[in-house]
């Protein structure tokens, strides 16, 4: 395990990614402290509407004279929380279903795998459109659940593949013959093999979900106002693009940096685990 950390830290890109992620995480957690203003307060509709970036307002103000720095910082909290919680949910569900499916096999496995194939055939956004159309007004928690429950397929496949390969290996038959029960087998043999790829998938997944949530919020079906989300800010900024470019630009940059950070960390982990590919 420590050797893995060493290999990880040796990679320059991984260090950069880690710094980015830590920075963003820190900013998100400390948002209320760091922001000079409250993100939802309309400061001064008469005078402080749509101000370009300045010392007082480094990211400018929006149509409702809200400070953009505060909004972007608080948006970080929302986007990161949604992403982290969704990924946690998807990993849990995926691992559980993959384990069951792989271990029990048979009809259950076939049905589940066909379901996964079908769900993967529908493009992500359309799938979410479908679910969110049917369950509207879900709130933040609901959104996390919806995203989490539609993102578990990769993890499930990984776990299932590992379980099936384990089932086939002779030493498992031997341990079963010796009377070891399934849970012990699962822990000592399944977990180590499966942990690494799951962590990589999860890390990269966080970045993907930040993008997904931003897209949904942009379309108006993700995070709902007044909760600040980078996606909704960009949507707000679209109508005012020529007059006030900063409203759409800074949240976008924030997204790019966040996804870069998680991608670098995820790639770094993948290279640390499997050093062959450079």
């Amino acid at each position, binding site marked *: 395990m420590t050797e893995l950390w060493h290999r990880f830290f040796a990679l320059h890109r991984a260090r950069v990614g880690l710094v980015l992620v830590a920075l963003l995480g820190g900013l998100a957690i400390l948002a209320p402290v760091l922001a000079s203003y409250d993100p939802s307060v309309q400061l001064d509709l008469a005078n402080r509407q749509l101000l370009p970036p300045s010392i007082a307002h480094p990211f400018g103000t929006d149509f409702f004279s809200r400070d953009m720095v505060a909004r972007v910082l608080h948006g970080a909290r929302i986007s990161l929380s949604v992403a982290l919680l969704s990924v946690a949910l998807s990993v849990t569900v995926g691992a559980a279903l993959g384990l069951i499916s792989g271990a029990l096999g048979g009809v259950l496995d076939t049905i589940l795998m*066909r*379901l996964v*194939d*079908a*769900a*993967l*055939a*529908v*493009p*992500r*956004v*359309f*799938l979410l*459109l*479908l*679910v*969110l*159309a*049917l*369950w*509207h007004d879900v709130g933040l928690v609901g959104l996390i659940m919806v995203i989490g429950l539609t993102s578990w397929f990769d993890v499930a496949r990984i776990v299932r593949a590992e379980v099936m390969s384990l089932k086939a290996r002779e030493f498992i038959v031997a341990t079963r013959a010796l009377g070891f029960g399934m849970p012990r087998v699962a822990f000592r043999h399944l977990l180590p093999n499966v942990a690494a790829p799951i962590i990589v998938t999860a890390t990269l997944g966080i*970045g993907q979900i930040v*993008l997904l949530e*931003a*897209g949904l919020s*942009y*379309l*108006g*079906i993700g995070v709902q106002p007044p909760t600040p989300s980078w*996606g909704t800010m*960009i949507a707000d*900024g*679209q109508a005012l*693009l*020529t007059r006030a*470019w900063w409203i*759409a*630009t800074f*949240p*976008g940059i924030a*997204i*790019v940096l*966040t*996804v*870069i950070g998680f*991608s*670098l960390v995820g790639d770094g982990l993948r290279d640390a685990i499997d050093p062959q*590919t*450079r």
Partner: protein
Amino acid sequence: MGTSLTRLLAARAAQGVVIVFVVATLTFVLVQVAPGNPFTVAAESGRVAPEVIEQQRRNFGLDRPIHEQYLRYLANLIRGDFGYSFTQHRPVREAFVERVPNTLLLAAAGLVIMFPLGVLIGVFQGSRPGSRSDDTLSVATLVVYSTPVFWLGLMLLLVFGQTLHWFPIAGPRDPVVYQQLTWLGRVVDRLRHLVLPAVTLGLVGAAVTARYQRAAMLDVIRREFVRTARAKGLEERAVIVRHALRNALLPTITLFGLAFPLLLSGAVLVESVFAWPGLGRLAVNAIHSRDYAVVTGAAIVTATMVVLGNLLADVLYRLVDPRTRPA
């Protein structure tokens, strides 16, 4: 190639049909499980008379037992009947016929940009790993790959559309002048309107493809048959192209299959940025007005497109890699 290949492909096509069938079933189940019914909004709005609603319910067979509804639903789907859109006041199928080609055009244009560009960059990087240009390109692809596609579209729109005025900023064609244009003028107009949205999709797609292709090249170039090719005294160009590249393109063909869902998802967002009248925008608008038929239909249609795309990729792969052909 022969009959065994066609049999294999027929089997794959059959699997595809099963998948579409499962998708249709899934959507049916979801609609049943979801709270409310397709008519809640219409009823609540008060704009539709109760007798009409009751009539529609009977038309949709909503008063029949579930399994009858299900079979009816499937039968309709096979006939291409996706139901009625009460926001569009016409059958969903009509709306699709009008909108889907626009989305396909956008996705195809995105595909045309993303693959050649992505492959070129990936091959270039893969044949000189660790070099300055490789590192620079890696950073570039990472940044683009991490950019939300709708934001990229907005930025491109801001710079090239609204600031530089090089390209139009919305729609598939000029709303005013189009009618008066000649045939050639119309093509040019359409192309001009296609550029920004297609480039948006294409750039992100190219970043994904380039990363994939670079990894494939690195993997192949290390392989022993590349060393054999060099030992034969072949020119470096022949080594790279005929030996390394041909093998490195194989995984890219599988990427071709994965590209469809990505492009279609991206299209939804890009259509919203550029007011492109496609299936994505239709579905998004339908959500806000709870027009279920449109949204479920869209899921099924896009799933079908993805399945077809995968089938195509499968055929291509088998054509190119002799190892996958049955003996």
